[in-house]
């Protein structure tokens, strides 16, 4: 029985899975880089034109020198190869707006975005799973309908609008929570202060996913509870509560974990909008600034690092999946 594997061989299987996923990630990353590189070079004006215009450089010799420095005189395929080669050395290029390497500009903003993403997913998972379990335990009762109706609304509400409405209610009218930002300017910065700033953005981003997880969890619980092993567990004399918590729940979580992995990229995209609503100092704000100023090295860098975050999260999800269901074979 796979479930009786010893601890060390479980670890061995996990390591093999990890190695395999890392190998699979390489062509995926390459694809992400190529697609985005080509897309960005479809753009009509280069960032150089904007940069020279902003800094009022008009001397043709200087412009030519800049073109050479940024490698814009090379054919596209050579630029691409050079970019990939540089990426392998963690060199994402230079951002003239922030006047620092792209990787540093992103690194400054990344922790805030990761914090927002992780707290939103955690909230979505906790609320969604709990709501789904309640709805399935009280199926076809008032509780079940209540969960469905509330989930339906949060599944349809645009996150940015939900965010603004919560700001109106909890920050402007009631004054309980701050309007935006990550910490109080002057005299802020403690953990409690950051958590108070984090609460509304987390709700705005996370409730949409909570709605999805609640629906999936409900139907998954109902499906699993009809399986044979559940009847066996009941026949052994375990209470309904024990069976639900120890047997059904663990198996019913599998589809929720799967969609959680698939949606990582969506959550990262959603955080861009939420960061704009709450002036959250994350990658979204940087992206927005870079997109509007056509600072393409940064846009490209965010795409590549974003894809990396998604891939890493997916590998983590795979490991959780294996832990939840030891029967899973490695593909």
């Amino acid at each position, binding site marked *: 029985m796979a479930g009786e594997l010893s601890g060390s061989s479980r670890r061995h299987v996990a390591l093999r899975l990890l190695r395999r996923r890392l190998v699979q990630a390489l062509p995926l990353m390459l694809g992400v880089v190529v697609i985005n590189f080509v897309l960005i070079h479809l753009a009509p004006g280069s960032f150089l034109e904007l940069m020279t215009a902003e800094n009022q450089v008009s001397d043709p010799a200087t412009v030519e020198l800049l073109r050479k420095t940024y490698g814009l005189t090379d054919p596209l395929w050579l630029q691409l190869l050079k970019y990939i080669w540089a990426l392998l050395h963690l060199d994402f290029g230079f951002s003239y707006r922030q006047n620092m390497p792209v990787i540093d500009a992103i690194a400054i903003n990344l922790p805030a975005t990761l914090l927002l993403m992780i707290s939103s997913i955690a909230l979505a998972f906790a609320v969604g799973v709990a709501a789904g379990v309640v709805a399935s335990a009280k199926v076809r009762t008032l509780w079940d309908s209540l969960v469905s109706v509330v989930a*339906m609304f949060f599944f349809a509400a*645009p996150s940015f609008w939900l965010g*603004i409405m919560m700001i*109106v209610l909890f920050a402007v009218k009631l004054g309980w929570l701050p309007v935006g930002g990550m910490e109080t300017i002057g005299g802020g910065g403690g953990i409690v202060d950051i958590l108070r700033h984090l609460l509304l953005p987390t709700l705005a981003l996370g409730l949409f996913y909570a709605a999805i997880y609640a629906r999936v969890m409900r139907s998954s619980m109902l499906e699993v509870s009809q399986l044979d092993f559940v009847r066996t567990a009941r026949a052994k004399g375990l209470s309904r509560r024990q069976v639900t918590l120890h047997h059904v729940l663990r198996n019913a979580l599998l589809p929720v974990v799967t969609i959680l992995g698939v949606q990582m990229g969506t959550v*990262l995209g959603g955080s*861009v909008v939420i960061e*704009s609503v709450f002036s959250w100092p994350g990658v979204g704000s940087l992206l927005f600034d870079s997109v509007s100023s056509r600072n393409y090295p940064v846009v490209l860098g965010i795409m590549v690092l974003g894809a990396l975050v998604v*891939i890493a999260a997916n590998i983590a999800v795979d490991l959780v999946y294996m832990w939840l269901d030891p029967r899973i074979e490695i593909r």
Partner: protein
Amino acid sequence: MSERFAFLGRFARNRGALAGAVIIGLVALAALLAPVFFPTDPLRIVAAPELWPGEDPAFPLGTDSLGRDILSMLVHGARATLLIGLFASAMATVIGIGVGATAGYFGGWIDEAAMRSAELFQTIPNLIFVLTIVVILGSTLQNIVIAIGIVSWTPIARMTRAEFLALRDREFVQACRTMGMGNLGIIVGEILPNALPPVIVLSSLVVAGAVLFESAVSFLGLGDPNIASWGRLVGDGRQLIRSSWYISAIPGLAIMVTVLCLNLIGDGLNDALNPKLRDR
């Protein structure tokens, strides 16, 4: 014919779906008749700024920060919202069916390549990709449709592929092959009609997703500047949430109701087209 009635009957039995269809019908009607009800440019200034809803009976939903009629902008904005949703979903469906059908029918390395590219598009954070495409190609209606279509096709491709995998070796397909029918004829004429029901359900849900995408793009100020789309109205109202929060609240509510109804229609289609799956 009677089958069509049976389909309509099953759809109408789902009361939520029926209500959703009626409301979406009304929204579409309002969008169609917008120039009749509000013949002047909705972006024209017509009254004092920041009139609250109900304050002046001539402007039942009030006016925005510049004194433009919110109801007029809302009705005109319905056109952009619904059109973008429909066309983006149509585009995603065409790409998704094309990729999924080819992958599922031919299998082998074609399947492998198609599924890896679907994975690729799921790895790129979708909204970031949409924003970049729109900025690079320019903020026009077509480009927003293209961008949303490009990020939304993967679930449809996966579903189509799964259906094709299940159907490609069935007897009726083998019979067509023996008769010497070409691959294209079998894919389009024989397998696709049988694979379509779950795909239709999925693309109806993509419409709802596309409406949300579009609203986020125009909320961030990257939408078509000549169109009063709902997302942009929410964004315009942001500066005034202390004094006049209704300016953001009303168009956002319109987005939510529309998306909600589209989802209800999707559920109803699911019930009507896949009766076997109804209690799942």
